[in-house]
């Protein structure tokens, strides 16, 4: 019983890897469709040296700088706006409809328009990343403030809190866990969006790497691109979870 999780989990991973290896090594599936594990490893080695003029690190930097500027702007605008919308009804009445109009449009749909408006350079991609990240930031801040327990507000008022103190010392700290987890989701969304944008048009970045692998019939390069994207996505998420633990010590973390 104690080892069931480990054994069954390990079993399924081993079976999958073995199936991948057998299917590719025996040539049941063409190398062009699914690269073998060794081909992927070989591509990884080749890429760390440099591929089409840039190493993995260059691609990482290219994707990351766009993500961080677009995401940073989304946090700086989305979180305060969401808080204000939840706190002050006039702000909600004015900006609520704008959110309702723009929210149903999926972030990838903005990619061509961004190219049209800003060209294929970094500005366009930063804009799309911004669009994809602002919604989760704004919504989670809004919901977090709306869900502040009314009792806490009452308690603070009886202790003599002014409206400003209520917002900054009660509502925002109370909403903080939700705000931070919204920021984490936004980062994941920003990452997925930059990958999408690079798949459509780019000269560097992991999405571009996958696309150039696709164009040159090198499925192993594509696989390396996807693995790199997954690892970075995982790392960003894990980092954020650590930050949450540190920044919100009053919360139970499983």
């Amino acid at each position: 019983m104690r080892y069931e999780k480990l054994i069954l989990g390990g079993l399924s991973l081993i079976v999958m890897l073995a199936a991948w290896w057998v299917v590719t090594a025996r040539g049941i599936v063409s190398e062009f469709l699914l690269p073998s594990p060794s081909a992927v490893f070989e591509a990884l080695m080749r890429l760390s040296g440099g591929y089409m003029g840039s190493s993995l690190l260059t691609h990482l930097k290219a994707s990351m700088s766009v993500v961080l500027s677009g995401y940073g702007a989304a946090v700086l605008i989305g979180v305060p706006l969401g808080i204000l919308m939840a706190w002050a009804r006039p702000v909600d009445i004015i900006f609520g409809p704008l959110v309702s109009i723009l929210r149903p449009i999926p972030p990838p749909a903005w990619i061509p328009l961004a190219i049209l408006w800003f060209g294929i350079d970094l500005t366009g991609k930063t804009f799309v990343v911004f669009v994809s990240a602002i919604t989760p930031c704004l919504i989670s801040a809004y919901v977090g403030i709306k869900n502040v327990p009314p009792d806490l507000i009452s308690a603070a008022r009886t202790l003599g809190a002014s409206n400003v103190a209520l917002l900054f010392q009660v509502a925002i700290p109370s909403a903080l866990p939700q705000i931070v987890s919204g920021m984490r989701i936004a980062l994941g969304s920003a990452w997925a969006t930059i990958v999408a944008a690079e798949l459509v048009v780019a000269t560097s970045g992991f999405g571009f790497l996958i696309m150039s692998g696709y164009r040159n019939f090198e499925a192993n390069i594509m696989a390396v691109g996807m693995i790199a994207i997954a690892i970075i996505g995982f790392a960003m998420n894990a980092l954020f979870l650590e930050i949450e633990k540190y920044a919100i010590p009053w919360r139970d973390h499983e």
Partner: protein
Amino acid sequence: MSESGFDPKRPVFSRLPQPLLTGLGVGGWVLLWWAIVIVFDVSPDFLPTPWQVAEKLISLTTHPIGEGSLWVHAGWSSLRFLSGFLLAAAIGIPLGLLMGYIRPVRHLFNPLFELFRYIPPIAWAPFSILWFGASFGSQTFVIFTAALPPMLMSAYLGIRLVDPGLINAARTLGAGSTTILFKVGLPAALPQVVAGLRMGLANGWLALVGAEIIAGPGVLTGLGYLILVGQQNLQATLTIGAMVLIGIIGALFDYGIRRVEDKVARWK
């Protein structure tokens, strides 16, 4: 959005009914858009007026672009979306329920999902095109990978979070484990399952648009194709028109699921 419970200042206009307020707000933003275009004399190839976008959409219903009129593109997009979405539901929900109910199944499948969890669904698009060709199948696959995880997770959590008291009560009444799954677990988990459908819908719709855009002009149908054609021909009117259409159709699908949600959660 709902009213703040502790807002001391309530201006007069806040006493208007909410739908009217939202309508006024939406109208206000559209007018602002319009005003900006006119005041700054923006070229329609960069940012058209709302009226020009509406005109474009209306003319699209009779003047085809690519392989058909607006109805053809909207129809193809919806069809691709539904095939990926329904496939994900047909596999994700039963698997999620089983993973929640039978421990070995959980331990067997969990690591696989953990492994693929951090790959954004859209990143599957190139491989998908490689495997299935730039066609219906490749887009269905991308939508499937996007819609599956939330549906599976919700079904799984729905079963895991069933009140153990309910299960024990059923057991003392003499129910077997199959009966418990179908007569207790499933109804109790249903609201979660439907919530998962709604999340899967949003993810799938997003992935559809991404897949259609990434597939490029190799496929001559779909709303993503219209967006792309607009960009390549420097016709912002077409691009924005197609975006509006995507927003509206996505919102309609969401509305449909919400109706189901309300029905399912009646006893809650």
